[in-house]
């Protein structure tokens, strides 16, 4: 289905907007329970050490302190470890600490101030161990081991013929090996083979609502108010860790103040539950933003690409070696490795592909999901190298891409689904906006040089592959949509309600997105991978269709006709020329309290062993980026003067929200390209505090900053598909490509700080 006939052209006020502009919106941050205690965490000053002893006696004696939890408490849990696929992270450090910032003890007290004071009274004896801080160090023979014993869990499941390994070598968490054809032989037969190496940096999500959870234990029941974006994933983890049946665990979600992947999967939530169990009172743990910087990061990494090409500019094969820095614990690293490894080919046609990707354990902040999930690392390396090869061969980078791009409908890799987007059409928009064709010679202004570059990012929209939904229609025609997609700012509330409203022929204002409570809300497997509008959206569309069928059948029974004679609109049924209002019909039959028509719907992406991921990818997320830069050869300072970023929504359910998603993601990638980075100096992070950690501000924006959305159709409701991560992809490469265009040097390490740019310029002087 293409998006040209979209019924969603009219602008809409976001359903969550009025609460958010008036301060009425309630976040988990605002949850307060009677008798609630406040918790604070003692963190490790060592990157790698054995915990010899912890004496919390003085802390417990402090007035106002209710409970202290340490690894000794965690060790007694039925299963104290969590992580995605591979589970190696303890609820709180049990025998060792593995990074500066690792959680060692936690205090619950009457207020945060008392909890802070108590932390200073806890005495911990450590036996320091030699830390491994870089991928290279971790892989050196004889390097200290982060883990002496195998972790729980299993490798990420993949399709037939694809290899996914758990802990294959010392300090390696996971490995993904993918082959299509004989890359070695094809490279040997290629006219040119280029090998290039790229380095990617760490950044933090920096969601403004800190990590916050409130837990309450009541008899057998555990209740948690959580900022987590995956309530059902969390429910399963809490049930497993505490050895309770899942129906004894209840998760409440409110508005989430930003996530970007940072709030996905289990993290400190079980620790809050443990405190609530131990103290017998509700407990709130709200991390500071400093602690957030020590909780999760995007994967730094090294990517080595060996790419073959024929003299006529046809790409032949690509061999990739990817090593991502997974940090101290698994979190979502195993998944990220699989995604980065698969996406490294970019949107091009290959005779053969061979990829090895792994996550390496180091004594640094755990790395996990970050908007784009391995795709930003892959697209930076891939789209940088594509440009480098074009320039080396003297081929125009646009022509080089055009020649090799996958056509619409062509599968990304054998066994996978076809690309729905017209990749060249999107690139053409960028090229036009840059006025790339027939551009004038690059002007020179003193020490400043100008250049332009572009890139095409691509990732799969896999991930969340099943969802259930309820659509409840009241006698008045008012509707509640129940689904587990969490509103993290992506606009899910409005988009999902709009799908239900459109299906039922009702005004959007009549539809409300129900509060999320795992006791009542139908399940999905997380708010991930730009999937909500498509996967949960399809479940809602089906639920609304089911409700509509029930309503028509009810009316047909009352009118003594067949449902096929009736149409639904404006909360009336129409039969021939007569409209019959539904409200009196329903209350007349059921009485004043009325009735709820409850429609049910579900989505499940089927298993397919022929597809590399074990399921054909539901849709593809491309992005098209163009950048114009001005580089000062004297200072190395890069100013992006023009940035244009586009994406394909399939068909926009809410065009304004689509634009917001692209621009928001692109600015995150922009910051990472130029300055934003969580930096380490030896074993310690040097800027893990909001004062020193720099994120983009309004005055960092490029002078000319524009976005666009194309609608090439998708598998979701009304032709929609996901768009939330798209803007992250390709920005770094487009800027690097523009820098080379301006000054003839290549930056292969992100961010492109003045120091690095200047060093690169001076190296060729």
């Amino acid at each position, binding site marked *: 289905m293409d998006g040209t006939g979209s019924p969603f052209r009219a602008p809409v006020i976001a359903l969550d907007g009025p609460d958010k502009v008036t301060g009425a919106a309630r976040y988990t941050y605002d949850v307060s329970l009677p008798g609630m205690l406040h918790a604070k965490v003692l963190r490790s000053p060592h990157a790698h050490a054995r915990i010899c002893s912890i004496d919390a006696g003085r802390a417990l004696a402090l007035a106002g302190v209710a409970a202290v939890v340490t690894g000794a408490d965690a060790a007694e849990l039925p299963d104290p470890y969590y992580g995605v696929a591979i589970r190696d992270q303890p609820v709180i450090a049990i025998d060792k600490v593995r990074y500066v910032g690792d959680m060692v003890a936690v205090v619950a007290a009457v207020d945060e101030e008392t909890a802070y004071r108590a932390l200073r009274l806890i005495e911990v004896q450590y036996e320091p161990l030699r830390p491994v801080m870089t991928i290279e160090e971790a892989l050196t023979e004889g390097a200290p081991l982060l883990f002496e014993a195998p972790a729980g869990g299993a490798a990420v499941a993949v399709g037939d013929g694809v290899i996914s390994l758990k802990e294959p070598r010392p300090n390696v968490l996971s490995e993904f090996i993918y082959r299509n054809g004989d890359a070695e032989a094809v490279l040997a037969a290629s006219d040119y083979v280029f090998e290039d190496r790229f380095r990617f940096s760490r950044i933090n999500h920096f969601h*403004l609502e800190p990590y916050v959870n409130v837990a309450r234990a009541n008899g057998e029941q555990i209740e948690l108010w959580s900022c987590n974006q995956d309530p059902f994933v969390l429910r399963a983890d809490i049930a497993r860790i505490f050895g309770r049946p899942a129906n004894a665990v209840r998760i409440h979600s409110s508005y989430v103040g930003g996530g970007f992947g940072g709030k996905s999967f289990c993290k400190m939530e079980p620790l809050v539950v443990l405190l609530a169990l131990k103290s017998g009172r509700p407990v709130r743990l709200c991390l500071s933003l400093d602690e957030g910087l020590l909780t999760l990061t995007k994967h730094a990494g090294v990517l080595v690409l060996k790419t073959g090409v024929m003299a006529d500019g046809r790409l032949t094969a690509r061999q990739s070696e990817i090593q991502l820095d997974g940090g101290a614990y698994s979190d979502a690293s195993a998944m990220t490795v699989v995604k980065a490894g698969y996406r490294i080919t970019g949107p091009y046609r290959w005779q053969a592909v061979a990829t090895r990707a792994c996550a390496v354990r180091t004594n640094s902040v755990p790395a996990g999901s970050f908007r784009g999930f391995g795709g930003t690392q892959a697209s930076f390396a891939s789209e940088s190298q594509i440009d480098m090869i074009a320039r080396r061969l003297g081929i125009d980078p646009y022509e080089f891409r055009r020649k090799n791009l996958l056509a619409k409908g062509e599968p990304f890799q054998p066994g996978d689904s076809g690309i729905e987007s017209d990749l060249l059409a999107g690139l053409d928009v960028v090229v036009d906006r840059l006025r790339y064709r027939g551009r004038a010679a690059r002007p020179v202004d003193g020490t400043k040089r100008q250049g332009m570059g572009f890139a095409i990012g691509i990732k799969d929209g896999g991930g969340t592959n099943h969802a259930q939904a309820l659509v409840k229609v009241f006698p008045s025609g008012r509707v509640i949509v129940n689904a587990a997609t969490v509103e993290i700012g992506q606009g899910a509330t409005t988009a999902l309600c709009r799908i239900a409203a459109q299906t039922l022929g009702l005004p959007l204002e009549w539809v409300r997105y129900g509060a999320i409570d795992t006791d009542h809300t139908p399940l999905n497997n997380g708010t991930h991978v730009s999937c909500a509008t498509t996967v949960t959206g399809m479940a809602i569309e089906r639920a609304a269709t089911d409700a509509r069928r029930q309503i028509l059948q009810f009316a047909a029974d009352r009118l003594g006709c067949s449902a096929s004679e009736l149409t639904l609109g404006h909360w009336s049924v129409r039969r021939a020329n007569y409209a019959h209002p539904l409200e009196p019909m329903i209350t007349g039959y059921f009485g004043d309290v009325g009735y709820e028509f409850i429609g049910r719907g579900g989505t499940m992406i089927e298993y397919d062993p022929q597809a590399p991921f074990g399921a054909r990818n539901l849709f593809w997320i491309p992005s098209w980026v163009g950048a114009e830069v001005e580089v000062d050869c004297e200072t190395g300072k890069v100013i992006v003067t023009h940035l244009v970023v586009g994406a394909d929504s399939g068909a926009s359910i809410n065009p304004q929200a689509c634009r917001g998603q692209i621009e928001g993601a692109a600015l995150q990638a922009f910051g990472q390209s130029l300055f934003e980075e969580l930096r380490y100096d030896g074993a310690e992070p040097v800027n893990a505090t909001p004062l020193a950690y720099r994120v983009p501000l309004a005055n960092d924006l490029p002078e000319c900053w524009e976005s666009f959305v194309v609608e090439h159709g998708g598998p979701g409701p009304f032709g929609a598909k996901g768009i939330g991560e798209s803007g992250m992809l390709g920005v770094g490469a487009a800027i690097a490509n523009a820098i080379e265009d301006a000054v003839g040097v290549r930056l292969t390490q992100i961010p492109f700080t003045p120091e690095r740019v200047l060093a690169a310029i001076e190296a060729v002087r």
Partner: protein
Amino acid sequence: MTGAIDITLTVNGRTYRLSVRPRRMLADLLRDELRLTGCKIGCDQAVCGACTVLVDEMPVTACATFAFEVDGKAVTTIEGLGCAGALHPIQQAFLEHGALQCGFCTPGMILSVKALLARYPDPDEPLIRQWLSANICRCTGYQMIIEAVRAAAKARGS
């Protein structure tokens, strides 16, 4: 200073006489005692601007302002601006221009814009960018916020 300090302040037009501890921060006073939870604390270090409120019409970071410092002053929080159905023009502009996503920065951002427009009724783009740089938004990429500010200025001027 150890004992409690008696202060009188006006919040959203209502006068309060309160006894506060010397270390009590304005943000905590607003949130915990007055239940004005629209004041959000992000970084707690006067960096992100989420806790921005107006004190005598000037934007301040409530997380880094002692409660006693606002003795005798008038505080405006987001709850004092408008409510659903009777929104302030800046709130309306933010809604119409999609200038918010997760919404956590939004109350502080809107109050910051109110202070901007009070001082510069017709700000140009560089000034808007400069002024908004006191408030971090991690979601939107700022452009739609800038458009909302321009629209609010226009609505105010007309």
